[in-house]
């Protein structure tokens, strides 16, 4: 069996064993579904409530992608501005850090007071996702080979040429790593904000469905919604990892396969 196949088969086997054990225990002990639902019941609910759940999934994914796009554009643009103008970095970076280290769960209620709900949710998701892009872009742009920089200087390159031909390509691996983190965090930020907004009503995203199902003791639907959220997170991760691999496969160590 090839290594690749083993890497896929091992976790799948593990999953099968756990689900089977779960099913058997729930049935054997006759545990009621509002305590722990059997996996089969969760799947049934997932199918039965598919329309509702997928609509909610689309809402959450919509916010996630908007937040991610804004974080990507904002983080990279600000990272470039930091690199080009030291003054901008000096005056803004501390605030970016403060925004990052303040727990988003604590900021969310405040945002919900000042902003209309969809915008508040988007803002939360953006705050969480923005910083890793900024931090990684800044790091990447600052860690350019100093000899290459000297070479550009020797050939009288303008600062835009240095940015375009040297700094941006050199920073690409770090930028992509930042985007990969931001992808997962956008989803987390969206979910946190939806949960915080949940009590304020009017929400319809997946996290709201989880909160709502919890109040109604519809535990199987909670599990079904959770399953969809996880699947969305995994899909985002693989999408961005694939993108990163495509962009770096020709040259970067992280994307090269070596025989050691």
């Amino acid at each position, binding site marked *: 069996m090839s290594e690749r196949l083993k890497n896929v088969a091992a976790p799948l086997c593990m999953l099968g064993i756990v689900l089977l054990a779960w099913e058997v225990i729930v049935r054997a002990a006759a545990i009621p579904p509002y305590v722990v639902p059997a996996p089969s019941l969760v799947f049934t609910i997932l199918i039965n409530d598919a329309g509702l759940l997928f609509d909610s999934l689309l809402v959450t994914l919509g916010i996630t992608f908007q937040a991610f796009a804004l974080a990507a554009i904002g983080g990279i643009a600000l990272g470039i501005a930091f690199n080009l103008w030291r003054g901008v970095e000096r005056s803004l970076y501390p605030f970016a850090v403060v925004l990052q280290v303040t727990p988003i769960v604590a900021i969310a209620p405040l945002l919900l007071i000042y902003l209309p709900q969809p915008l508040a949710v988007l803002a939360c998701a953006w705050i969480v996702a923005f910083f890793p892009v900024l931090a990684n872009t800044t790091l990447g742009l600052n860690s350019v*080979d100093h*000899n*290459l920089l*000297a*070479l*550009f*200087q*020797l*050939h*009288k*390159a303008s600062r835009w*040429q240095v940015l375009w*031909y*040297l700094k941006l*390509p*050199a920073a*690409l691996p770090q930028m992509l790593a930042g985007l990969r983190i931001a992808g997962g965090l956008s989803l987390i930020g969206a979910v946190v904000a939806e949960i915080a907004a949940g009590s304020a009503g009017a929400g319809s995203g997946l996290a709201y469905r989880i909160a709502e199902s919890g109040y109604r003791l519809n535990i199987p639907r909670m599990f079904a919604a959770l399953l969809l959220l996880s699947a969305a997170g995994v899909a985002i991760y693989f999408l961005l990892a694939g993108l990163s691999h495509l962009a770096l496969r*020709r*040259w*970067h160590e992280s994307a*090269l396969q070596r025989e050691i």
Partner: protein
Amino acid sequence: MSESPPIVSLRGVGKTFDSGTVALRGLDLAIRDGEFVSLLGPSGCGKSTALRILAGLSAPSEGTIKWSDAAAASRIGFVFQEPTLMPWADVAANVRLPLTLAHAGGADAAVTQALGRVGLADFAHSYSRELSGGMRMRASIARALVTEPQVLLMDEPFAALDEITRFKLNNDLLVLWQELRRTVVFVTHSVFESVYLSQRIMVMTPRPGRLFAEVPIDAPYPRDERFRTSADYAAYCRRVSETLERAMGAL
């Protein structure tokens, strides 16, 4: 040859870094047009700093640098100790870089010619990681040659290579020099390498570096492996070693 006027000269050049380290003090150098000259000295004697000052990458703290004509000052090729290639670009794009930055036309022909000169014609579309250390250095030299520079500044370019590769590159560099007749300033800490390559060796003192002595190597070109095993070569090496020895004691 030795009577031709200098293409560039340093007078009383000193360099003190922000850290307070005095790298150079009172350095006088004259480089003549078309010659192959080596700067030889122990590690940290400021020879790389002198080269960077010649390249205009670093400004002297004191003293002056004078070019015979202003055009020559901007026609410089620089080869670093490391190949310093952009890993995300293929060899051709790396070699083309100086022309790209200058928005120069006709780049393709110049790149092809430069790659041909260093024997990398078949590797235009390889990436740096796919090349051996010697081939990376060849690409780096091709990049320095692509602008047809008047002066080629080389900062211990072969120091990190194995001996067999270094000998091969030494020979190829001499062939190139004879073909192109550009001025080469070659920084090295190897007595043997400097004797093999140069017409003239400028021996520097330890830090703060200044010129200690000049040793002319009058052996004829073309030089090849026979020169490396000749009695002349051994005698020159002994003389340069002794001069370096005395330079080490002079402060």
